[in-house]
């Protein structure tokens, strides 16, 4: 009932807001899964939008759009109301984006973290967050005293599983005894639930807290409990100055600027972008000096090697939980395998929820 009200309210506002001036100047639309004030995932996309806006290009954004039926409505309305390029910034918008793209061949669509490009006007883009996770794993393996790493996971999709695997592989390399404990919260953003999950992991002996969710609640719980943590998507250092070792930062701004200009100038082409540390789409926040200079030097070297291609997050031999070989010795996982990753590597406990 309440949702229905909200939906009709949003629809009315949309019709009023954009229905009137359709087909005017060049406009870019953004669809966000959380509020712009989450200080994580959506915040960073919003920073990217601000960079586009700074060029003098008109932009519109809709925040806190649930993945599902609502998403299609919002995307469709943006397309209908004269937006020429639309960024849909969450995995769950994959099917709605492609569905709407079919009906609006003249509008360009950019879907974040997905893999479906069913129509020539849909591009996909993502960042190699797993490279950052490899660095986190290295630090976690060295810093843990209890050999237990707590991981707050959102949804069982390849992106999240890839992160868990990359982190575990890197941690095992420096500390063969580590255990990764995972709690699935089935949300991208619920501060209360995220902090309960963090507390549960800490109570279970984890002294490193990692998250693949978007709020700053887990790092704050870690700070209070006196354990280490890592920020997600954005630099969360000021929320947990003692606890945070570093944060993985998503920097979308250069990509959004480039693609918006291309769409405006008519040079936009369908593509699949997957940028990482090398291109700067994934960046690391300053390292916490509590780690000690030696470890920081190690991590910085590893970061350089990952960026230059000298090191790879998924270098064989890699085994799945049952001991079957996934990547042969000396080989590295190709992008196709990474994109569809749906098994845990050896050393991760538990099953992936189906």
């Amino acid at each position, binding site marked *: *009932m*309440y949702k229905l009200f909200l939906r009709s309210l949003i629809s009315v506002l949309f019709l009023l807001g954009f229905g009137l001036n359709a087909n005017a100047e060049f406009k870019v639309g953004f669809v966000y899964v959380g509020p712009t*004030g989450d200080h994580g995932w959506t915040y960073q996309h919003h920073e990217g939008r601000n960079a586009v806006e700074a060029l003098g290009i008109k932009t519109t954004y809709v925040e*806190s759009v649930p993945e599902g039926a609502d998403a299609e409505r919002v995307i469709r309305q943006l397309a209908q109301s004269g937006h020429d390029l639309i960024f849909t910034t969450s995995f769950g918008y994959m099917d709605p984006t492609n569905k709407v793209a079919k009906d609006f061949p003249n509008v360009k669509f950019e879907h974040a973290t997905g893999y479906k490009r069913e129509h020539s006007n849909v591009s996909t883009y993502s960042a190699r967050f797993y490279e950052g996770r490899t660095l986190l794993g290295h630090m976690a393996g060295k810093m843990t005293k209890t050999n237990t790493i707590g991981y707050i996971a959102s949804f069982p999709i390849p992106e999240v599983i890839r992160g868990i695997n990359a982190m575990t592989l890197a941690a095992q390399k420096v500390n063969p005894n580590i255990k990764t404990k995972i709690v699935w919260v089935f949300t991208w953003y619920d501060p*209360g639930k995220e902090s309960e*999950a963090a507390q549960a992991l800490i*109570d279970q002996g984890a002294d490193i807290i990692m998250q693949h969710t978007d709020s700053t609640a887990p790092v704050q719980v870690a700070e209070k409990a006196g354990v280490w943590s890592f920020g997600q998507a954005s630099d969360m250092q000021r*929320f947990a100055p003692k606890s945070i070792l570093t944060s993985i930062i998503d920097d979308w701004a250069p990509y959004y600027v480039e693609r918006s200009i291309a769409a405006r100038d008519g040079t936009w082409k369908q593509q699949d972008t997957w940028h990482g540390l090398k291109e700067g789409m994934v960046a690391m926040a300053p390292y916490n000096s509590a780690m000690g200079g030696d470890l920081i030097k190690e991590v910085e070297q590893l970061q350089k090697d990952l960026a230059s291609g000298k090191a790879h997050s998924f270098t064989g031999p890699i085994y799945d939980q049952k001991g079957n070989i996934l990547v042969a010795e000396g080989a590295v996982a190709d992008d196709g395998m990474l994109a569809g990753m749906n098994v845990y590597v050896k050393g991760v406990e538990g099953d992936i*929820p189906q």
Partner: protein
Amino acid sequence: MSFDLNFIGILIGAIMASSVPLILAASGELITERSGVLNLGVEGMMIIGAISGFALMVVTDNLFLAVIGSMLSGLIISLIFGLLTQSLLTNHVATGLALTIFGIGMSAMIGKNFVGIPGKEFPLLFLNLKESIPFLGPIFFGHSIILYFAFVLPFLTNYFLKKTKTGLIIRAVGDSPTSASNQGINVTLVRYSCILYGGAMCGLAGAYLSLIYTPQWIENMTGGRGWIALALVVFATWSPIKVLIGALIFGGITILQLHMQAVGLRIPVQLLSALPYIMTIIVLVVISRDSRKIKLNTPTSLGQIFYKEK
């Protein structure tokens, strides 16, 4: 899972902490509903309380003022609901829903300037006792004053409704406003007071979230807890003690399912996530089966608009 006693104590302490906002909001709403007013704006009043408390904490740097302010703001926003439903006689359900939507939007707007500011440490009582007594220590000590208040509140509410004259008047107004009015009771005044009290408690529940539980301001941080509190009142058949039990079960299973995951128990995670909702409803339905008591506790005029005959 480690089964040492102290760990179980810590677990129970965590469960108690997570159920506080539900107890506070549900106890407030219970009084409101007992007077015959259905206020679906719990979520909205909570979120307003959360942002007001946090904003006041940042501006004044005084936690006491922040807590009082959050209650006042919950009270003020419920006054809007009171004016609409009691003086202008609008529909309770629609007005309550509007209040929630308004509260969420309004809090996000006020909150824009308070995003990303770390919270302040809220004083916890008897911390040394918590450390020194195994098992019982983490259960009874090391909590905030608001938690202790929340756990006394259902008993006070029960006593108030059953044993005091004011409580009797509230129940009379909720059951039959016309007869109460004929007895010379000012129905509108009673209902106004109950609405304001409910608002203040929801505001406090919100402040607990933004000042103590996750000390920061985040948009939509109540995360549907207001709706759960509303449901608790109904499933607890308007009994304050059962509200307390329901809130503890809900909080308990929420925390336990996270622990079961962390231990790696092979139970489908989706089922675990749904467990708090399922179990709370089942338990409350089972313990509230006595139909005579349900009739006794249910405010018969709930949600109905009262027209005073002139």
